[in-house]
């Protein structure tokens, strides 16, 4: 009967509307599995108290990988020179201490992040007009130029031997650093938490949505009037700032910095970590950095050659069979589990 058909159509339509609205409106809510990485990080503090110096380095890499995820995973910018901003942050903190006596740690990394972010905005403004190989080469060249310039003025930067003898004030005036790196670990974790909070908000904001649009189809974005270049420069600057904070944290937790922070290898390494964990998923950065660093720490000591072989095989395997990385695999497993539970 016509009347029934109409009301049936109206009901499905209403139901569909409600479902659609609900999905989008609730997407940014924090879900309980999100607590896991943090619980694990805190658990590590109690379970492995003698590995806390290593733990701090893992957290530094997570922050670095997170910064890369913003531009690579969300905006789709392929760069092999992100170590440039990590290095800028690292050296700002070191030189601020050596030249200005700036020893307060928190303001130090904020300064490092700000400088890296400003330089990121300037560089990004120029190079983000380009794509593909041209953009890739420009990012590589920028990082390499910084490294070579640093080597040129090794009187300032300490060259590849680096700048030792850095020391920083206790955190908030209270927390002393200890030989076992306990304070550093919790410090790094706190910084990561703050950064993650901001990154998560950005990713779920309309701006973050626009970044995904740029990654998915830049022609369409142009056709609907999106100021693509401005958006890319903005996210590049933010990402550079975060990488700078990671670099500053690196200097503080190591009390040491060398020009190797600008290495092409280092840029490639953080990209491998992110791919391993899965791009565009924020938690991919956690997973990838953690797994990579732990494996490297254990395996490369055993045999660097086998480590390199392993990474090579992993990359080839990931591209051919597991394009969404470990986080994607975890998602799939979670999906299957949920379906199995529902039965």
């Amino acid at each position, binding site marked *: 009967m016509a009347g029934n058909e109409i009301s049936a159509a109206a009901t*499905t*339509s209403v139901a*569909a*509307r409600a*479902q*659609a*609205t609900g*999905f*989008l*409106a*609730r*997407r*940014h809510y924090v879900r309980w599995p999100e607590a896991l990485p943090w619980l694990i990080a805190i658990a590590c503090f109690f379970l492995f108290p003698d590995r806390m110096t290593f733990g701090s380095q893992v957290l530094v890499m997570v922050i670095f990988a997170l910064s890369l995820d913003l531009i690579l995973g969300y905006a789709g910018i392929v760069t092999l020179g992100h170590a440039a901003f990590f290095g800028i942050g690292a050296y700002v903190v070191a030189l601020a201490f050596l030249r200005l006596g700036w020893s307060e740690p928190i303001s130090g990394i904020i300064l490092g992040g700000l400088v890296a972010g400003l330089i990121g905005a300037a560089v990004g403004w120029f190079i983000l007009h380009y794509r593909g190989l041209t953009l890739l080469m420009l990012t590589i060249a920028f990082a390499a130029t910084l490294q070579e310039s640093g080597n040129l003025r090794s009187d300032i930067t300490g060259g590849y031997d680096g700048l030792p003898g850095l020391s920083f004030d206790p955190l908030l005036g209270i927390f002393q650093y200890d030989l076992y790196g306990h304070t550093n670990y919790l410090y790094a974790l706190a910084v990561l938490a703050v950064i993650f909070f901001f990154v998560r*908000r*950005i990713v*779920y*904001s*309309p*701006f*973050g*949505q*626009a970044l*995904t*649009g740029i990654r*998915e*189809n830049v*022609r*369409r*974005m*142009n*056709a*609907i*009037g*999106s*100021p*693509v270049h401005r*958006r890319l420069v*903005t996210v590049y600057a933010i990402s550079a700032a975060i990488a700078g904070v990671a670099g500053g944290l690196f200097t503080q937790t190591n009390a040491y910095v060398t020009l190797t922070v600008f290495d092409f290898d280092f840029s490639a390494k953080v990209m491998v970590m992110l791919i391993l964990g899965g791009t565009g998923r924020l938690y991919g950065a956690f997973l990838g950095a953690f797994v990579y660093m732990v494996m490297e720490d254990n395996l490369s000591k055993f045999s660097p050659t086998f480590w390199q072989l392993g990474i090579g095989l992993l990359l080839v395997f990931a591209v051919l069979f597991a394009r969404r990385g470990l986080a994607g695999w975890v998602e799939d497993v979670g999906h299957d589990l949920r379906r199995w539970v529902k039965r």
Partner: protein
Amino acid sequence: MNAGAPATLEVQKLNCSFGALHVTRNVDLTLERGARRALIGPNGAGKTTLVNLITGVLLPTDGRVLLDGADITATTQAFRARRGIARTFQINQLFRGLTVLENICMTIGERDGHCNNLWRPAGARQAVIDEALGHLESLRLVDDALKLVRELPYGRQRLVEIAVALAQKPRVLLLDEPAAGVPSSESHLILDVVAALDPDIAILIIEHDMDVVMRFAREITVLVQGAVLTQGKPADIMADEQVRAVYLGQARGAGGGGHG
């Protein structure tokens, strides 16, 4: 700029060449407010090229593009889109990895400048979601709202492409073969939606289907080998000897008409 006001789009002596290939020749065209114009012509006549020139995907080698009298010839695509020019592509250009609803929400977000906001969650903007659902409803796409675009059959994706253009709330709308690939059971939807649009919007449709052209158009422009052959009312165009020669020549496979 008054975004809601009706617009006039004008193209004057537009020329475009790629090296020795002269793809657009001295085209004059006006889309006055409320225009319902169809652009027809044999394959390769340069119809999509003309739309690309109007929207800024291509820059002309000579001639001007004017919006409300202002010269926009040297402006970018995004600039023109923000001034109210929307288009669909001949081959869908959608965000294939996102849901249908997100495609529309993104469009509205960029239109109203929401996407400049880095802080508030996208999902909190109920008004945007409601408006997006409204657009989907008119094209019977609500049930597909949460499906990824790449999971839809091509014909339904085409409807999403139209929804995106409409979500821009354009003042000038350029549709490039909107019904191509859409199953006939659903192609009437497109025309119904277009017919229901604000009568002040200027609309240009590129179409091959003469039924659609006759139903929709109040004016027709015939493009052959990049140049305007003739323009006029539908009845006159259909009766025009030159036009028939171009199309009949095509059908017979004889020399007449061009495969430019």
